[in-house]
């Protein structure tokens, strides 16, 4: 598809020029998007329209443009993007361009260049030669950085419907608790098998409900089997996972039988204390103190783990990043290569991860609270699956589909 933006100005409403131009575009086999229409408040005041014309080929597009130019449509002059220097560390210049999570290009020295590191709600930084545009978070900007401002010379490409006709292609962004989950999970499993073969990365962001609900074993199996390559979690998931190994409990409750264990409420604190004494989770695994569960599997398989702290954390465990800006940066650094994200039973980690991912990465959000998958689906990705269900059931079913035997 080729496209070009045209502008119409003047008494285009009363004279019916706007409908005429739109009709012409269709007659010539093109299609259009009305990007902007400003209608004059009085009859004397002119109106403006900005129209994006689409055509199947550049030749057809040229024909359409020639036809509508006779009626006053002007091709929008393409301009390079504008930049200003950041005034101080950690502050964008006024009027900075805020990114979306969609593929974005900026025009520099007359050429459209893709912006790297696409993620929503960031700025775009150019290097000294105005080349290599890359997104930059507010906190990381340094005084004097060239930051793209305004709207000129920036274009965002809406995502096309994915070509792969699997569950991600069909589902759109609906979330319902009243849909059968079985075939969706089977579809996710097929995608994971394909990704494992292609050496693309699969990310899982999860909360401690995975442990409480009995999802520890299937998740550990998924990791050992090479289906998970990046894990985002907090202090709690890691602590309860290792508590389960050391004490057989999760937050003091026996995982088998569910009865409270004597002084069980202390188990996770004792676990954290033990790991702190050893120095790191990796070392605890290497020393054989922790041999089963999610964290042990991650260490054995070399999974990249980013643990982000929260204000209510006990301990925390060594390796938990307590500065949230640093935690964001660490999560961001782990994202390149990720082609599927499973966001399981964690509102905060799921939303944070969703914000960091470009729209092109399919996401699966699993939560018993429908608000979480809905929030994620509202990001506007065409490839977001929301499952309103228990985390452990999801992981068990997923692992089973991939060959796990209980």
């Amino acid at each position, binding site marked *: 598809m080729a496209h070009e933006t045209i502008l119409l*100005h*003047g*008494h285009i409403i009363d*004279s*019916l*020029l706007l409908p005429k131009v739109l009709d012409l575009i269709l007659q010539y086999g093109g299609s259009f998007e009305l990007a902007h229409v400003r209608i004059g408040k009085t*009859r*004397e005041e002119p109106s403006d329209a900005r129209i994006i014309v689409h055509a199947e080929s550049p030749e057809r597009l040229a024909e359409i443009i020639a036809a509508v130019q006779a*009626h*006053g449509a002007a091709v929008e002059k393409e301009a390079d993007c504008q930049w200003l220097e950041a005034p101080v560390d950690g502050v964008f210049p006024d009027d900075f361009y805020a990114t979306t999570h969609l593929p974005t290009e900026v025009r520099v020295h007359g050429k459209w260049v893709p912006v790297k590191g696409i993620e929503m709600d960031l700025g775009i930084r150019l290097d000294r030669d105005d080349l290599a545009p890359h997104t930059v978070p507010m906190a990381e900007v340094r005084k004097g950085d060239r930051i793209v401002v305004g709207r000129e010379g920036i274009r965002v490409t809406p995502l096309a419907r994915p070509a792969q006709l699997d569950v991600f292609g069909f589902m759109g962004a609906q979330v319902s608790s009243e849909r059968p989950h079985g075939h969706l999970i089977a579809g996710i499993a097929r995608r994971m098998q394909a990704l494992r073969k292609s050496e693309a990365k699969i990310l899982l962001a999860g909360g401690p409900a995975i442990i409480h609900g009995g999802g520890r074993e299937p998740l550990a199996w998924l990791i050992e089997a090479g289906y998970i390559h990046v894990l985002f979690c907090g202090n709690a998931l890691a602590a309860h996972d290792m508590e389960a190994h050391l004490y057989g409990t999760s937050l003091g409750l026996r995982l088998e039988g569910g009865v409270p264990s004597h002084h069980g409420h202390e188990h996770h604190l004792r676990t954290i204390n033990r790991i702190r004494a050893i120095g790191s989770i990796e070392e605890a695994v290497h020393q054989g103190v922790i041999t089963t569960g999610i964290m042990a599997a991650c260490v054995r398989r070399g999974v990249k783990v980013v643990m982000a702290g929260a204000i209510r954390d006990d301990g925390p465990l060594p390796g938990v990043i307590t500065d949230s800006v640093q935690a964001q940066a660490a999560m961001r650094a782990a994202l390149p290569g990720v082609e599927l994200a499973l966001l399981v039973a964690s509102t905060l980690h799921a939303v944070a991860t969703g914000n960091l991912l470009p729209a092109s990465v399919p996401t699966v959000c699993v939560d018993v609270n429908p608000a979480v998958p809905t929030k994620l689906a509202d990001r506007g990705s065409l490839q977001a699956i929301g499952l309103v269900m228990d985390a452990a059931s999801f992981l068990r079913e997923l692992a089973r589909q991939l060959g796990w035997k209980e």
Partner: protein
Amino acid sequence: MSRLLVCPPDHYRIAYEINPWMDVKRGADPMVARVQWHALVAMLEKNCGATLERIVPVAGLPDMVFTANSGIVAGRTVVLSQFRYPERRPEEPPFERWFQEHGYQVKRLSLGLYFEGAGDMLGTRDLWFGGYLQRTDIRAYRYVGEFLGREILPLELVDPRFYHLDTCFCPLSGGEVIWFPGAFDRYGQAAVKERIPAEKRIAVPEEEAMRFACNAVCIGKHIVIPEGCPITMERLERLGYAPHAVGLSEFIKSGGAAKCLTLALD
């Protein structure tokens, strides 16, 4: 609208063909043309109370008689034409000189933006229409509108016989309009209908449009109209106008009549 600019037809002839009316072989009779022009001028001055300004004709510029195409005047400002056809471009400097010598503020459009003055731009006090595509480039109206502070509704001209707006559209002093709807596409027709109520639209039959019924000059209640348009004249009379028929056959051979031969100066 009582002061008009005219150009005596001393050098008038059909020297080239730039519209479907012109036929170099057939030509126009210069003697008859002169007689017709003087009769028109007399009609305007004596019967209609118009004051005429005369520009000195230039040899080799036969179409200078069609002063309506030299520009558009609003108050003391004139936006000069830029002719689409190279044959008529040499008319621009003598007209520019005339406007400068007569104290007009002369506005020029950027090069390549074709605009054929009052031939394509017609209106009343607060509503202006601009014909485009055949001669005037629609983009010119943006600048003309800004120069003159006027709203201009563009109308595409779709019939090559009606190549200027003033060949198919004529606003009258009472807000009515004489027009030939077939010269416009459906968008243009709809735009005119939207702005001018049915009782004020006088659609002329095609045979009278071909006799240049729409190329009339309206001064107050007087309307000077080419001869051979009885239906249009009768309708004008019923609306309280005093139509005066004049013979302009030799000018129609060039694609112009009463209106084309005059330019409203204020």
